[in-house]
């Protein structure tokens, strides 16, 4: 595959000020195009992206940094995995907002929502030639010479993908001063208060179920912030009751076809594989209409890495939040919770010294924020002037 620029520049790219009004307008225009396109309706990730790109939302982000004096970082390379649903557009757009000149390498396997996104990018590129020039999407082999050359002179690179994929990209020559941000393998979890759940009325549980489905099944559980493991907190008997109520509600709210046949099969095969191997752990395997739950007492790193998404939920029980002894690691990104006071979660998370970069209520797991994976993307993709210079 040759070097194929998808929205070729009509002018030479130049750096711009952070939060330049033109960029805000560009984002708004992109948002309008995406949201007005009937094709977008097939891709929930595009709808989310369209909403996020609204001028009002970008201004909100701008406000958070109004006290900072920021300069662009320079040339930034982005390696995108297969789909727009994977959030790479967000970090790329933030880099654009920061005034950088960006090159984004799309995956050869980029799917349907990428196609729609590119279509709109091409459309508005003519109206915004300067911005289009510093937001370049490319398709090429990963060892393409032009690509290597570009990266070897870049000031920053943002790498999304699997651990192996990132290591392969890392092997490329990159300047000593270059800043690198990686979004590697992530594993997210949810936490439900069983004691609260069994006291909650049906209507509210239904809302919870719908939010849970949105978070975890919009992308067949494969978004990095979608939960694959659920912590159930409460007394044993109450947990058993709560699980029953919860999963039945989730199941009755699931739309048919949310997972494809092969995904169902993959889920069944994976949960059987785990159940059959490693006999020292007592497990409980339950098949629901479209989902599978597997109770574990502990999670091995192999189980974590092999989890295919597709509607398999590991479950671990604990008597109370403080009795939950789980070895959280840096790859454990989002904890989406329900039935807890946010302060309670904050206090608990304070003592989780590694992992859990985000704790959000169930229903908000997929919401993108400029602080992602413990990285303030605006600051990471710009250079901040010393504050004493302000005086």
């Amino acid at each position: 595959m040759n070097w194929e620029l998808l929205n070729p520049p009509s002018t030479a790219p130049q750096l711009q000020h952070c939060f330049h009004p033109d960029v805000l307008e560009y984002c708004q225009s992109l948002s309008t195009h995406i949201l007005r396109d009937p094709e977008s309706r097939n891709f929930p990730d595009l709808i989310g992206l369209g909403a996020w790109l609204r001028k009002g939302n970008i201004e909100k982000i701008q406000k958070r940094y109004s006290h900072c004096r920021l300069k662009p970082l320079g040339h930034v390379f982005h390696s995108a995995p297969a789909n727009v649903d994977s959030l790479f557009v967000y970090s790329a757009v933030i880099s654009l907002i920061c005034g950088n000149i960006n090159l984004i390498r799309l995956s050869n396997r980029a799917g349907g929502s990428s196609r729609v996104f590119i279509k709109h990018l091409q459309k508005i590129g003519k109206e915004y030639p300067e911005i289009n020039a510093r937001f370049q999407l490319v398709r090429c082999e990963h060892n393409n010479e032009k690509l290597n050359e570009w990266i070897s002179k870049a000031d920053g690179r943002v790498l999304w993908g699997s651990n192996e994929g990132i290591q392969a990209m890392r092997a490329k020559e990159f300047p000593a001063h270059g800043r690198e941000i990686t979004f590697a393998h992530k594993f997210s979890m949810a936490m439900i208060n069983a004691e609260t759940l069994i006291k909650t009325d049906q209507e509210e549980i239904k809302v919870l179920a719908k939010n849970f489905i949105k978070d975890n099944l919009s992308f067949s559980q494969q978004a990095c912030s979608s939960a694959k493991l659920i912590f159930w907190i409460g007394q044993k008997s109450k947990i058993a009751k709560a699980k029953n109520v919860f999963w039945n509600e989730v199941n009755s709210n699931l739309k048919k076809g949310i997972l494809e046949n092969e995904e169902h099969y993959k889920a069944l095969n994976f949960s059987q594989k785990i159940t059959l191997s490693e006999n020292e752990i007592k497990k409980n395997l339950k098949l629901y209409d479209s989902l599978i739950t597997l109770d574990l007492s502990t999670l091995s790193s192999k189980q974590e890495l092999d989890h295919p998404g597709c509607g398999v939920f590991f479950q671990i029980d604990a008597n109370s939040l403080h009795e939950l002894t789980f070895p959280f690691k840096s790859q454990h990104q989002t904890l989406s919770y329900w039935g807890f006071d946010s302060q309670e979660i904050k206090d608990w998370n304070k003592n989780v010294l590694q992992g859990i970069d985000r704790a959000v209520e169930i229903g908000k797991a997929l919401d993108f924020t400029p602080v992602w994976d413990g990285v303030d993307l605006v600051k990471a993709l710009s250079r901040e002037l010393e504050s004493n210079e302000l005086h």
Partner: protein
Amino acid sequence: MILTQLLQGEPYNLQKQEKQPILLEGLNELNAWHHQNCTEYSNLLDAIGMEPPWYTKSVTETPYLTVPLFKQLELKSISEEDVFKVLHSSGTTGQTPSRIFLDRDTAALQSKTLVRIMQHWLGKPRRPMLILDHPGVIKDRQAFTARGAGIQGISFMGRNHCYALHEDMSLNLEAIIKFEQAHSHEPVLMFGFTFMVWVYFLQALQKEGIKLNFPKGFLLHSGGWKKLQDQSVDNSTFKQEAQQLLGLNAVHNFYGMVEQIGSIFVECEEGHLHTPAYADVLVREPGSWKVLNTGQTGLLQLVSLIPKSYPGHSLLTEDLGKILGEDSCPCGRAGKYFLVEGRMKRTEVRGCSDTYNVPT
């Protein structure tokens, strides 16, 4: 016990009322046997809450394993010393093949079922056999795949074996003509894998403008239709071409997989695949895994009473299909009859990880 009786009878004589209780009893015994002898299998039955004596009330409740497990794990219900033969699936390149462990008894049962089923179609006397492949496929013990094993298995039914292809998959015309001259008017058996038969035998004969004449011939073929579907070749096209080019009438496909010995489903004159007395088929809806009714398409679950040395008596396959009826096929054979409609569609990769091919 049940099996010995079954194997004495005809493979397609058992009506539903008779077959289902026998099948259930046999499967229940196998559940318990594998629970006691295969740790991995016992883990599963324990995890889904089954309790001693691990019996179910109906065949539909028999737990089932997904087929890729035999690629992912080494599953057997016999000790290492008792392993007599290991069968391998062909599998896609780069994938670990399935490993199916047989002891002497199970291997003997497998041969016996194969013979019983095939004798029904071919008659007792061994037939002169034209193998629609090249001889290297069974010579190379190292690469002894499902293809080789299949050919060797079916070769039992034949005599005066003759390979129709050269090592480079070109027609061995000399051998074919010689075989035709010697056996043209005898009941001969031809066997090969569907795709190979089409591409390297039938298409090649046509290209050469050669028509053979085997009025009493029986062409048996097996293997997936996927590659042929890509070339828009369906079963009836295949059959017509074969009948024309080989001058025969009997063309029969069969469906089965190395992971479940004893499950050999031969296509009858009506184009339907038939379950023998020792095996059965169910159709399940992906996701809910509920058993579907006759006529509804879903994933095929195969059950067989033969797998004793490994827990393969109830398998959920990746193949879609539907049951057409039971005991009511116009061909007169008893048992369920069904169609295979091909593999599940592959899904697009979603999400943000593992979407990158590491350069090699």
